Each structure stands twice: as C-alpha cells, then as structure tokens.
C-alpha cells in the first residue's frame, strides 16, 4: 500500500485528508501517482506549484521511484512562520 496525504488548499479541493492506494505499476513514481490520482480528482489542477514529500522528506525529483509502504504527501507551497 502507498499512503497518500493531502494538506491545506489541496486537502480542501479534494475533500480528502488521506487515502491508501495499492502499490502497482501505475503508481511507480510520484509523477505516475499524481497522474493516477488526477483521473479521480481533477481538482488537483486547481492548486498551483504542488510540492511532494516521500516518507516526510521533501522531494524535488518527481521521477523518484516509490516503494510499497511509502508515505507520500502532496501540498501547496509552504507559508508558515
């Protein structure tokens, strides 16, 4: 399974906090995963400059391979402080 988390505006647009996705070829990378998610959640495109974290580390290379059991988070750019 891949655990997917959404935060802030993305969480509100998708109306979902988290979901579990079976690990398979269609979700082998972050880029694949977001394409896969887009089929059901077209609202993903309402949020600009989405960032991704894998196992709680920010990832800039969206071609990074995912592994079974990974926690992947998608969120808008950070605006704290």
């Amino acid at each position, binding site marked *: 399974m891949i655990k997917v988390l959404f*935060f802030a505006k993305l969480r509100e647009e998708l109306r979902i906090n988290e979901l579990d996705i079976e690990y398979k070829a269609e979700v082998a990378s972050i880029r694949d995963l977001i394409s896969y998610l887009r089929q059901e959640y077209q609202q993903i495109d309402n949020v600009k400059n989405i960032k991704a*974290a894998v196992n*709680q580390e920010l990832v800039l290379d969206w071609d990074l391979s995912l592994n079974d059991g990974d926690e992947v988070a998608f969120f808008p750019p950070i605006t*704290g*402080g």
Partner: protein
Amino acid sequence: MVRIQEEGFDIQSEVKKIKPSDESDIGALVTFVGYVRDFKDNKSDTLSSMEIEFYPGMTEKALIEIEEKARRAWDVFDVNIIHRFGKLNLNDEIVLVAVTSAHRTEAFRACEFIIDFLKTDAPFWKKEIGLKSESWVDVNKKDYEKVNKWY
C-alpha cells in the same frame, strides 16, 4: 528545542528556558516573534482570524533539522523554536525563535537563519479568515530570495 502547539506562549518564560538567571556564559540573546497581522494589500476586508495547518511528523523533523543546521554554522548555546497551529486571532503570536550565544553576531545570524528557513522548509500553511472572505496565503517569493542568500 522545538515545539509545535495549539496554545499561546509566554515570551518571557520561553526565554528563561534558554537563559536561566544563573547561566553566566551567555552574552547575547536574540528573539524573533511573528504575529498575526491584518491584511496588508486587501483594504476592503479586515482579518478576523487565521488557521494554521501542519504535517505532524514531518514538520517537527524539518524544524529539528533547521536548528541543527544553525548549530553547525554558528557557535550558539541554545535554541528555542515554537510554532503554533489551529485557530489564531489577530495580534496573536504565531512563532518564536530565540537563540543564545556568547556574542551578538552568532545569535543574530542563527536567529535570522532559522526563521528564514522555517518560512520555506517547515511544512506549515496559513489560511486568512477575513470578515468577508477567507483564503490560503500565497507563497511569498521574497522568502525564497532570503533563503537563497544563505547559500
């Protein structure tokens, strides 16, 4: 030390934690406090509150990493970082960064470094709730320019 909490904090008692009155090697203490302020560009609305969201687990790790980077770069005694989440009101404290060192230069640099990186690397998101409308805060490009000057 790093803390993420819903409740407010007392600046004086948080400062005392890293500058106890019997600690005589500390020559400098620098604190930064960020507050909820009213809209700057939107004159047609007034801010009533703010909601702050974070990523439990990742946000703590990111803050700890920022503190460690600052400690590697400057000779500081102690660091106290607090960031609030949940619903905050106008004029509430959002964030505290306090740093002690023997001399002011290290304390100033480390404090500025920590708040600059906190703005771009620690996953927090702010939503501004006005009397008429609410919206997620847009990313500030200047924050990224500030971080880049540290490299």
